């Protein structure tokens, strides 16, 4: 009786282990990404892709909601293909894409913060569109910063989706009240500080001189890297593997913000701002002057008289962070020809001028910077600074981990420098270098 049980049990155990090893073996193979089956012929035959009524899925992140919706609507209205847009909160985007990519369920098209693009390109999340891009008539005019961020081993994977530049926005009414010239924004960091303090002196209830994302790594790089660039310093080394954020100019920038904070010129909510609501207060007329995303010019205009100035350095100059999102076809898409149809339309004048420029957003093609809608002098300022020699799109493989991720070493550095006693900048900078160098 007993022997019977043991024999049975043992046999079952052996079967189970065999089944397990089989499944584990299967799982181990699960990670290979399949290459797109030969598409050279279709690419040549259909340089603009195929428009046959296919449903395409597109993911983007919340900050670019307005532009994304406008583009998708315009495309859907004029094409047989229909794009289904999914907008994800900024904080969830990386994990969402990660989980989807790992299980082979990426949507046909997805946009990525340009600072994540090098990492995701290298990991093979995007499909190779080098030959397709080469067929674009405007290929030479496309924003080089974004294109090179999405280039890996000489192959191109990404096109610019929505360019987002950082500039100084200021509230003209508050400037007038404070006795500042409403037509002139700050031209040096010292002036920026003065203006913010002047607005704060108004002592208006609920109004603060300035605002920043005190707990937001992405906001920090977006708004302060230009200050460092315009001061003639580089925040990272050339290949993005070491951090230089303890340089002299950088330390001056932190010191300026620290002074503003201690003088009470920064809105109290800034300290814990994780980036979810960092643009809200300005639109409600509560902030005097702050670095801001240029994509929100049209939105902010609805409720505030907005003045625009380029972000200055310590002694003048101008620079901007050429950010925003790049877009590509995912490795999992089975309708890449149709997906390409959307991308080639995106690069056309119809999309760039009639949708983006019309709503005072940035165009991604240099030849379209002067267009019939670019009459607003503020848009001209933005276009100008985009072409300035000190304006960059930083590229680093571990950018997201080092800077944008919640609780990244970058966040630790500037929080210590501004809210703490500022003594650990060098040590914190070392922590950033360690993450970048991984």
């Amino acid at each position, binding site marked *: 009786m007993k022997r019977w049980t043991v024999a049975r049990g043992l046999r079952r155990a052996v079967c189970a282990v065999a089944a397990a090893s089989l499944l*584990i073996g299967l*799982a181990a193979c*699960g*990670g290979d*990404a399949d290459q797109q089956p030969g598409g050279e012929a279709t690419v040549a035959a259909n340089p603009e892709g195929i428009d046959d009524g296919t449903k395409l899925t597109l993911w983007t992140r919340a900050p670019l909601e307005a532009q994304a919706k406008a583009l998708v609507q315009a495309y859907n209205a004029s094409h047989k293909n229909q794009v289904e847009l999914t907008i994800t909160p900024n904080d969830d985007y990386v994990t969402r894409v990660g*989980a989807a*990519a790992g299980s082979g369920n990426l949507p046909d098209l997805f946009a990525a913060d340009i600072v994540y693009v090098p990492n995701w390109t290298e990991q093979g999340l995007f499909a190779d569109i080098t030959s397709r891009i080469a067929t674009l008539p405007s290929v030479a005019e496309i924003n080089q910063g974004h294109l090179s961020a999405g280039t890996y081993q000489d192959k191109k994977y990404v096109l610019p989706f929505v360019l987002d530049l950082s500039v100084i926005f200021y509230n003209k009414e508050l400037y007038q009240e404070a006795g500042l010239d409403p037509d002139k924004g700050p031209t040096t960091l010292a002036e920026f500080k003065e203006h913010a303090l002047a607005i704060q002196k108004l002592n208006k209830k609920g109004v603060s001189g300035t605002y920043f994302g005190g707990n937001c790594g992405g906001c920090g790089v977006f708004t302060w890297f230009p200050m460092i660039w315009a001061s003639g310093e580089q925040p990272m080394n050339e290949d993005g593997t070491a951090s230089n954020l303890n340089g002299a100019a950088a330390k001056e920038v932190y010191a300026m913000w620290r002074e503003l904070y201690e003088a009470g010129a920064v809105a109290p909510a800034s300290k814990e701002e994780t980036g979810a609501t960092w643009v809200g207060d300005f639109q409600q007329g509560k902030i005097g002057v702050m670095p801001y995303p240029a994509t929100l010019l049209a939105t902010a205009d609805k409720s505030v008289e907005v003045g625009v100035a380029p972000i200055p350095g310590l002694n003048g100059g101008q620079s901007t962070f050429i950010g925003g999102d790049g877009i590509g076809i995912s490795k999992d898409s089975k309708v890449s020809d149709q997906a390409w149809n959307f991308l080639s339309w995106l690069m056309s004048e119809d999309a760039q001028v009639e949708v983006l420029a019309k709503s005072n957003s940035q165009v991604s093609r240099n030849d379209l910077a002067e267009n019939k809608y670019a009459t607003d002098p503020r848009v001209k300022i933005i276009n100008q600074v985009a072409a300035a020699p000190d304006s960059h799109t930083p590229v680093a493989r571990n950018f997201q981990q080092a800077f944008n991720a919640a609780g990244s070493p970058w966040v630790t550095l500037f929080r210590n420098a501004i809210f703490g006693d500022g003594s650990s900048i060098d040590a914190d900078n070392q922590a950033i270098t360690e993450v970048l160098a991984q």
Partner: protein
Amino acid sequence: MATPVERPTAVRSAARTTAGPGPDGQRRRAPRLRLARRNQGWLYAAPTALFVTVFFLIPVLLVAQMSLSDWGLFAGNRGFNAPDNYTDAVGQRLFWPAVWFTVKYTIITTIILIGVALGLAMMVQEVALWNSFLRTSFLVPSALGLASASLLFYALYAPEGGPFARLLSDLGIGDGTVSFLGSPNAALWSTVAVIVWRFAGFYMLLLLVGLQGISSDVYEAARVDGANRWQIFVHVTLPLLKPSLALCTILCITGSLLAFDQFYILTRGGPDNSTITIVLLVYNIAFGGRNDLGVAAALSLIVLLALIVINVVQFTALRGRED
């Protein structure tokens, strides 16, 4: 209670009545019936066995394998690399902060939650309509999921429009910018409040079951001896409640060590990584930029081992004290 050991007797007696007279007939029937019954037993247990094997045993083996391999989220299995994943996991920038915070959170939550539950149980243990209403009110939060409860409190803690914020500013406390989730301590206590609200009723229920086991004779005897309320509580009720308290403690500690939902929704581990729990760290390593399933697997195995050790220690400690 019917036990399997008695089964054969029942079967044999049934066989006796239906098989007809004669010892030979009975003995030949019973074993065959038992054999058939045994096979059928396996048949009925097969779905359970299938689920447990495919969705539990194999993943456990798989996670062990993953923890010993260089396994990226996109790249897949790239071969063994023991013990790198383990050293990476422990050497992670946020490993010790996460461990420390999780332990701190567990201790605080367990003490407060069990204390509150005990108080509630003592309050409502008598039969009365009013107590029925009280019991139901305390139990209603348990109907919600933890994620729903967290979302609910996320809205309650809204810094400007939320009722708590408005209450505090009406009372003149704080400088008008009270932030329940904005500073490390506030975030911790706000989250503890959510958990206490959600689970107090459930643990109260467990303790009520324990209280039932104390017969009123014991109380009578104590009262006759002249003990007052407090003495009765400390020297009679508490010791006799030990098994229930032990169960509650074990459940609470295990649940708190594995906290994820509430922190993901309320704080995402912030501000400044001050509220990152171990499981949140595992999730971030797996899907949040580092994309390293091997290290995440190693970390989650470390959690499993820690949990086993803690539970074994609890079991022996509490059982020892019982004797």
